[in-house]
């Protein structure tokens, strides 16, 4: 146990006691605490408390886990400690949602049970004969818990770290069903959160799809329209992203993480070198297919294929019959945490042929990958914002956080995907320009938005990389002892998002800045 833990608890207890208004009404805000990482817990509790300063409410914390979650991911889940921290952050009640309840089975719970079973057992999809019974019962029980909770109390908001899988996703669904604001904190950067308010819903089938649409609209109105003014900051973020500062995507490897190629000739030479190395034809364009963590949050946004594995399999089949371009299939660098079936290797064994190669992403440096790739394919991977920022076009076979921002070609249906892919391959072979200057600019604006405007630095939520626990607890204790709260960005940004019903936290008032 960290020596800073108890001082942190004492400081938090004193701090929040003096910084929260007393709720005179029977309002509740719900904060989720079902992840073992204390950085996640700090984010949900802090945002919940910042909302309580705007709309006084009592704090209800949802916690607990089960054997399947513990075995698969949360081996260090410590409910006693979660309860201590939640109490220090002013929790009025703490509920273990995994306690036995009579299940309420529905189509929704079935969908969540399937996605959760895939994630916990590291499966791209459920095999025939898979016994979904226990997970289905658990999803039903969780749904019953959440339905009763959101029905019986006057809840003003749910703050959660996830909107996927049974224990989180069904709570988020219940909040949406009961027209309760949903705040989804992000596990990266300083303080980042998306919000879905009942007033702003547009009828998309999933929570993430709703957010995609709203983020796209905000981007258009408050970011793209001010691009001239933002350009200096955008260029700096683009430079930093290219040099792997500011934590861009993780598709990188090798001793060099910066990108040194500058001229068209450099690109051509390096692409030729890389193609030869991989056994590809240096005179053909190359399509790079970025595999996903195959069991990650299945079916949570609009997708063109039934699941992520189906997209990869179908694309590999297409590649085998499209010899006019090179095909490079890259495995996801963290796949071992998401697949226990060897899906990628098995597909490689079936589909590899001259001109169609399968590789681990660690085998290619950024210089190699960026020079070789003429077109990137993904469903929702971050390559679809990173590559266009540096002139590489991407087709997405589905929606993502940023897919409404106009930097990639987005195919929401399978037929659109094949049509876009076919015409892109044709144009590649003709040597046509594949990306517009506007798409590049939009992608760079997204990099800026993601790591600047939509990332709120506040000492009350240390940057995600402030770690290990000793450092985190000491930093928080110091903050709560010595930093006063007036106009701290935590509170001003939550206030702005909460009262204006905006879809994300912002570092500053984008509307005001745009005037």
């Amino acid at each position, binding site marked *: 146990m960290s020596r800073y833990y108890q001082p942190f608890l004492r400081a938090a207890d004193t701090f929040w006691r003096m910084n929260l208004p007393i709720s005179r009404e029977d309002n509740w805000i719900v904060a989720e605490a079902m992840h073992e990482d204390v950085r996640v817990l700090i984010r949900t509790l802090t945002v919940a408390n910042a909302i309580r300063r705007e709309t006084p409410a009592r704090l209800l914390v949802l916690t607990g886990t089960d054997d399947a979650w513990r075995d698969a991911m949360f081996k260090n889940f410590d409910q006693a400690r979660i309860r201590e921290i939640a109490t220090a952050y002013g929790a009025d009640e703490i509920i273990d949602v995994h306690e036995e309840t009579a299940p309420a089975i529905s189509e929704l719970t079935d969908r969540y049970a399937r996605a959760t079973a895939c994630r916990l057992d590291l499966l791209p999809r459920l095999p025939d004969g898979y016994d979904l019974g226990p997970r289905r019962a658990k999803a039903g029980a969780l749904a019953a818990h959440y339905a009763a909770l959101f029905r019986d109390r006057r809840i003003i908001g749910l703050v959660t770290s996830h909107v996927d899988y049974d224990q989180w996703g069904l709570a988020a669904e219940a909040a949406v069903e009961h027209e309760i604001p949903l705040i989804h904190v992000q596990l990266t950067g300083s303080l980042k959160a998306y919000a879905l308010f009942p007033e702003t819903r547009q009828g998309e089938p999933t929570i993430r799809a709703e957010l995609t649409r709203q983020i796209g609209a905000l981007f258009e109105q408050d970011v793209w329209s001010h691009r001239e003014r933002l350009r200096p900051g955008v260029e700096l973020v683009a430079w930093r992203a290219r040099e792997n500062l500011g934590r861009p995507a993780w598709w990188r490897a090798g001793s060099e993480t910066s990108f040194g190629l500058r001229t068209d000739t450099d690109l051509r*030479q390096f692409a030729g*070198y890389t193609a030869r190395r991989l056994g590809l034809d240096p005179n053909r364009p190359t399509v790079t297919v970025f595999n996903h963590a195959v069991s990650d949050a299945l079916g949570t946004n609009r997708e063109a294929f039934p699941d992520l594995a189906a997209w990869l399999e179908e694309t590999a089949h297409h590649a085998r019959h499209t010899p006019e371009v090179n095909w490079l299939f890259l495995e996801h660098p963290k796949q071992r945490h998401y697949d226990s079936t060897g899906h990628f290797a098995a597909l490689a064994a079936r589909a590899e042929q001259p001109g169609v190669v399968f590789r681990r992403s660690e085998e290619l440096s950024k210089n190699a990958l960026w020079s070789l790739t003429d077109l990137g394919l993904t469903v929702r991977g971050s390559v679809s914002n990173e590559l266009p920022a540096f002139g590489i076009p991407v087709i997405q076979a589905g929606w993502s956080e940023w897919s409404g921002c106009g930097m990639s070609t987005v195919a929401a249906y399978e037929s659109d995907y094949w049509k876009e892919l076919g015409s892109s391959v044709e144009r590649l072979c003709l040597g046509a320009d*594949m990306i517009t200057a506007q798409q590049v600019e939009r992608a760079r604006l997204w990099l800026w938005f993601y790591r600047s405007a939509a990332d709120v630095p506040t000492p009350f939520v240390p940057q995600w990389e402030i770690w290990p626990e000793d450092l985190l607890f000491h930093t928080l204790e110091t903050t709560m002892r010595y930093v006063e709260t007036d106009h701290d960005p935590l509170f001003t940004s939550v206030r702005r998002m909460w009262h204006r019903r905006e879809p994300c936290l912002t570092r500053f008032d984008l509307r005001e800045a745009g005037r």
Partner: protein
Amino acid sequence: MRHARHLTTAHDEPVRAGFPLALHRGTDPVLVVTEGFHRGQAVPGRCADGRNLLALRIGAGDRALQVRLRLSLDRTATDWRMRTTPLLNSPRVLLVRAQHRLRAAAVLCDLPEPVTGAWIRFDLDAGEVPPDGLLLLELTGEAAGLALAEIVVETPRPAPTGSLTIPKAARAGLLSCGGLAVGAPVAEHVKHPLLVVNPRPVPLRLTFDSGWSRPSVQAVTLPEREPLPCKTGRGTVKIPASATPILVTLPEESPLRTAEPLTP
């Protein structure tokens, strides 16, 4: 079609090139990209095992170029190799490519002492390095830990002629036979039965110490290792002109004395 203009930002430093080039630091911006290769502070860097790529911006226009590399095999390199390949009694055979073509090779032996070096030298025709592009150097083979101590790129100098001692021939990049002791008053070559004779437009006559009659040697081309017949005379072997490096196995520890490029 990809355009490099989309890769640049307003914060990029102007492109730097260096000609003539004598590179001693891995942090020099002229060394644009490396793969496998680990950049160094006091030397350009050290090799990883297997494949190493260095991309250098030369900016010499269309002219012909001469490239010279000095490889250094020290204790660090030996320790590094030992972690991956415990069989240190086998010599390291390295291949050097430029612009995708095999240009030279070297043989180096791991020894407890002293530090040994190998010299690589080859010419590039006018236009092989594009004026707005890169010199792509690849070092492959058993390179783990090997230091690349110097990279020189300049206008071609004529190849040495006449009968050369083995250290002189090795320094001129004509051949490589285990390495040269570095820092000793007289640069002794490490004697090893494996020898690389690098590409030349003329044959090379190797002369052995007296006492050898007709040395029985085996020669193969690199990298395919196809047998190459060599004429032997009394105490001499004539290695034919070749566009690729030739790996020569001598019957025992080589009592080589001189190497002489023959005029056509």
